[in-house]
């Protein structure tokens, strides 16, 4: 058996995580609008770091939201880990430092979710949920959700 590279065996600090409850969600999209407005100064479902893939005629409201994996494949896949794909000291969020990211896309490729929670803008920049790093009051999506369909589970809980 090939020996794993040393760093992969390193313990990565756990992260808090946003949990989406599809039975409470009604697909209003307010989380997406707040997320993109907060991060990008623009309201856009496509610039949001949380996606509600509403199936309007079936009244199903599944979401794509980063699981902030305990063993984060995106982090391990990043050739510039800790400078491009980083771990936030405070929340443990696995986030992309857009100043350092070269746009190789390895992280998105590595995401194990059925619908990867790492996206790319039309200019080629990759983006993902950073749990609103540094925002007083935590993730904005949770604050604005009118139906309490989003909850934040802090790390270690």
């Amino acid at each position, binding site marked *: 058996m090939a020996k794993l590279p040393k760093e992969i065996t390193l313990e990565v600090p756990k992260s808090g995580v946003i949990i989406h409850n599809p039975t409470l969600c009604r697909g209003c999209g307010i989380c997406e609008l707040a997320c993109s407005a907060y991060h990008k100064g623009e*309201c856009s479902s496509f610039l949001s770091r949380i996606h509600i893939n509403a199936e309007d005629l079936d009244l199903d409201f599944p979401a794509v939201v980063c699981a902030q994996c305990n063993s984060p494949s995106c982090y391990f896949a990043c050739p510039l880990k800790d400078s491009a794909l980083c771990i936030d000291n405070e929340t443990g969020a696995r986030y992309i430092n857009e100043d350092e990211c070269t746009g190789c896309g390895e992280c998105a490729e590595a995401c194990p979710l059925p619908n990867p929670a790492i996206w790319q803008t039309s200019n080629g920049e990759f983006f993902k949920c950073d749990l609103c790093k540094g925002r007083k009051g935590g993730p904005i999506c949770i604050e604005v959700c009118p139906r309490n369909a989003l909850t934040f589970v802090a790390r270690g809980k």
Partner: protein
Amino acid sequence: MGKMHGWAGKILKVDLTTRRIETEDTAKYVPQYVGGKGIATRIAWEELKPGTGPYDAENILMFFNGPFTGTLAPTSGRGVVCGVSARTYPTPWFTYGTMGGDWAAELKFAGFDGVIVKGISERPAYLWVNDGKAQIKDADRLWGLDTFCTQRMLKAAHGEQSQVLCIGPAGENLVRWASIQHKLSNAIGDAGLGAVMGAKKLKAIAILGTGGVKIARPAGFIRACMEITDLISSGPTVTPVRDSRGRPPGPNTLPCSFGCPMGCGKMFKNIPAGIEVGSGTRNMMAHCEDGVFISGDNKTNYPPKDIAKDYKGDMYTRETKGFGDKIGTEIQALCEGLGISSAFNLNLYPWFWQCIENGVTELNSYKLEPDNPRFWYDLVKKIAYREGIGDIFAEDLIRASDKLNLPDILKKAACFQFPLWGQPDHRLGRAYESQPSPIWIHTSLHWAIDSRDPMASHHQSSFVSMWFPLHHEGKAGSPDVDFNKLMATYAKTFGTAAGMEPGFENIDDKTKLTVWLDNRAQIKDSLLLCDWCFPRILRGFNSKEELKAAEDYCGDIDAEAKMLSPLTGLKITSADLGKAGDRIRNLDRALHIRNYDRSRELDSSGEWVCEYPEKSDGTKWDKSLFNKILDSYYNNRGWDKKTGRPTRAKLEELGLKDVADKLASIGKLP
């Protein structure tokens, strides 16, 4: 001009005859016409020639969003559709309808503030709008399908996240009051513009956009939106104390629109079959009157016994029957699928009963059985396909009663149900819900000058009726509201409470408030925001205790401006918005004067309905009192009393000199 904030910056222009697709800059129209209905009315003024009929190639059908659409502004997901409607009465004319859903935001994300459709396609077509581009595509396979199937087919072709507006068989068959449908039950219903799409052979518009809405000052905009979301968190102004529509809304509720924190729609999911399987969906959203097949409606109960003596024997009491969840949602789904407004039985149910009680048990050999759900099941299909009796009712009740050989009392009753502009009574306090004075005075003036049921303007006037404790004798309204505090709220907000005092005193103050309400309604349909929630004259409360402890009920009438300024980066005040609303109303008026000879006489044509007493407090007017009130209203509008036409001074004050010049050149300026 650089990239716009709030607006997408482009308007799509499609000619189905020549298959030409162009774009136009939005900058030409904003901020003076705001967006939505405002821009559409300006374009209609410029392009809609007198004599254009609803089914003519020259009729322009316009689908617009507004600067707030697709943003965090609460309740901002709505869109507006304008054009010459076949439904309006006595003549088809330019009107508008707004609807919720996701298409309006999707259109913004696709890079457009609106779509203007002209011409007639040779074959069934649909419009595919995607990221700054559009294509007219073949819809042969979609023609004839119900609205659910059409949406599923187009989502299969263009992606689940694409949004589809479409017509059903009723629109294709030119049912005058056919709706334009979207999702489960979002619709342009009363305006009846579905037949215009049908005449244009435009089955659907499918939209997908990956862009966004740029914000001039994001931090300020987010802060304003969150504050105002909090302000409206108790729900629509329908009731003083929060119900399941507020935050968090009840579990079996749905917001009608993208970006809305409310839950005004009742959600039905996987409902078992009632009569027949095959209404196209087992899910449904019932919002307000569209759910009447499910729960019935006691607001059609008119008039109460003590007032009934004045109804001269031609009106009587009858609650509209509901058929329960299973059968009711199925009939509603059938209507939404075929593309007609499911609220129609609100007026037809009591009218059919009136027919029966007057000895007319059959219409053209079609037996009337309004208590039998199968009767409605059959009638709805007959209307959508224009078969037999359905061909007559496809013309709507008011035109149908002209065609049918009926006793006068039933013709009169039809007029009572559809008092003006071929639209069902709503918020007039007679055939439908109660509206104690002075609320019905405001609402009937909104009716008098509008081109349809003036939903946006009278909702903000009439929801106060739910707050009126003194006039409902405990039947409706809120016993917990202190009337003096309510009046204090109006005094603080408008400088005087006289506009909301019951009775006919201080007419001038009342009509001033009517003007304010109507101007702000124009803005509401242009921004666009929910007419249940804005403008926020009153604030809602989370509990009765909170309501009792409050010193007044003041909301925040500057809420719209507080969000619009940081969004667009322009300094826009409530006064600016009020003036823009005035501009849009006057332009609409000028258009109706130029194209349809709109006059004082026409404005007065529904006055007779309010010679009947209002159903909760018995107040009414006679012709001379009505004329006095209309004089005052025209005066406060800056319109000539004799003709009802805007004066040159008024039009120039609003920056509409070109409009004044045009009206002068055809001899229609006072």
